[in-house]
């Protein structure tokens, strides 16, 4: 019925428009893929017959300690995710199911972080971590993000939707507070954990400015900072190698995204509707 109301020609125009926009959005990536997989002389002109090569990736991988950077990033992301899950779960449960004086005020204070993010408090956080003798460690990159208002908020909202009778039943069975949290609340909040986890991992995998400031050596730099150092100092303007390195550093997350596209998109939606 709907289709009959509108002239198909308009519809076709819209489809063409949507796809033109899609192509425009894909262009930078396609261009980067083209450059990375072809010899340097083809970086600036398009030739369908150009030979494919992995040499740029090999050269980039050998020119900088990317293996180490990758390990650093994986350690960083794992540390942040684990700590956030534990800390936010505990705090979210207190806000959702316990009553204590000043709860609402405290929750509002926590939520302030949604607006004033650690990302802009560079100078003070740098000073704090230098005073703690933690500068240039992976822990230092992670610390400002471990207490996450966003995570507390998301989990609290989820915990509030879990029926109280389930909690009461567990209590009657003799479960203590932590046991109830672990056996009733955590399993039922699994979709929220997945959503929050994906958003958090992609945020910290890609984070750049704070790691740039707080790290200073190969053993602590995450991939993003390593890539920036590589692209600005080690290379002249060998774009083929720079784009190969760029794709390499983004690849793990991109591949994960392509494989689990639906979960990623739904996670971002779930995390955004608040």
């Amino acid at each position, binding site marked *: 019925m709907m289709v009959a109301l509108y002239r198909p020609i308009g519809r076709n125009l819209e489809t063409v428009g949507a796809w033109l926009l899609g192509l425009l959005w894909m262009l930078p990536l396609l261009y980067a893929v083209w450059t990375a997989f072809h010899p340097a002389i083809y970086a600036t002109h398009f030739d369908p017959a150009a030979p494919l090569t992995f040499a740029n990736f090999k050269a980039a991988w050998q020119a900088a300690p990317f293996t180490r950077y990758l390990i650093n990033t994986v350690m960083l992301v794992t540390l942040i995710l684990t700590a956030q899950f534990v800390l936010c779960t*505990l705090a979210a449960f207190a806000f959702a199911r316990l009553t204590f004086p000043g709860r609402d005020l405290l929750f509002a204070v926590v939520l302030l972080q949604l607006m004033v993010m650690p990302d802009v408090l560079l100078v003070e956080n740098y000073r704090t971590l230098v005073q703690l003798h933690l500068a240039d460690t992976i822990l230092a990159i992670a610390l400002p993000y471990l207490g996450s208002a966003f995570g507390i908020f998301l989990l609290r909202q989820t915990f509030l939707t879990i029926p109280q009778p389930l909690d009461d039943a567990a209590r009657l069975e003799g479960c203590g507070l932590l046991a109830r949290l672990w056996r009733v609340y955590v399993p039922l909040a699994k979709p929220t954990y997945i959503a929050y986890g994906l958003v958090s991992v992609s945020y910290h995998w890609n984070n750049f400015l704070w790691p740039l400031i707080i790290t200073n050596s190969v053993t602590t730099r995450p991939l993003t900072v390593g890539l920036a150092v590589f692209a600005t100092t080690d290379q002249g303007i060998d774009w083929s190698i720079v784009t190969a390195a760029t794709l390499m550093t*983004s690849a793990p997350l991109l591949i994960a995204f392509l494989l689990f596209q639906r979960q990623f998109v739904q996670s*971002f939606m779930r995390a955004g509707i608040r």
Partner: protein
Amino acid sequence: MRRETIHAWLLLLPALVLLVAFTHWPAIATLIDSLYATPHGSRVAPFVGIDNYTDLLDDPVFWQALRNNAWYAVATIPVSIVIAFLMALAVNEALPGRSLLRMAYFLPTMLPMIAVANIWLFFYTPDYGLFDRIMALFGGGRHNWLGDPTTALPAMIAVAVWKEAGFFMIFYLAALQTMPTDLREAAALEGSSRWNYLRRVTLPLLMPTTLFVLVNAVINAFRVIDHIVVMTRGGPDNATTLLLYYIYEVGFRFWDTAAAATATVVLLTIMALAAAFQFGVLGRRVHYR
């Protein structure tokens, strides 16, 4: 104290300590530091009152950063929101290759900004870059996009729009998918045109989403400077210096921490205004589902 209260505090304590140590305390410390001179060595920094603020207001680079950031926000925010909305409308319809299209729109969101910056840096390269090649097709000459103060900031804006539109699209898409279909059927029965339906039904119903996206876009316009660090370093001639980049430069290149703290207070004020807007307007007038 009641047992429940003690339990609550024990559960909250680890997260609260970290939150306060790295968000609330530094925000307050920034305010305090802005009233003192930059400490040198182990000497205690003297109290200077509002001197840092008058110095800041006398710094033409600060004003330029503020102006740049205002232009950057004014251009990036509406353009990325409109594109995000159009993208969401497109992939909400049953058109050919819908899932591929949705992926194309969303992909930049998954890339690190620094990777995006590298790719676009190549785009903007004079002579060899894609932009100059396309311009050459239309008889344009060589242009140094990032080296020319008049095109450098627009070049940064294009990067930000490309990176962010797909992210905002997700929220519009989520909202569109929860919209009741009977509204659309009713409108169709009434013979309402699509444009009318869009203007009278879809847009008003999407207001909460638009406000949410707007606040996020404002925060991002003042928070994300990765591409500036990699592509232009604020140049040429401070043409692309945004507020946070100014703070980064003053704090970590010139090591003038008092001046950096003072500029951070300005940035925090802008974010507080965005927060007040969200809690005031969004909290009261807007309801989610």
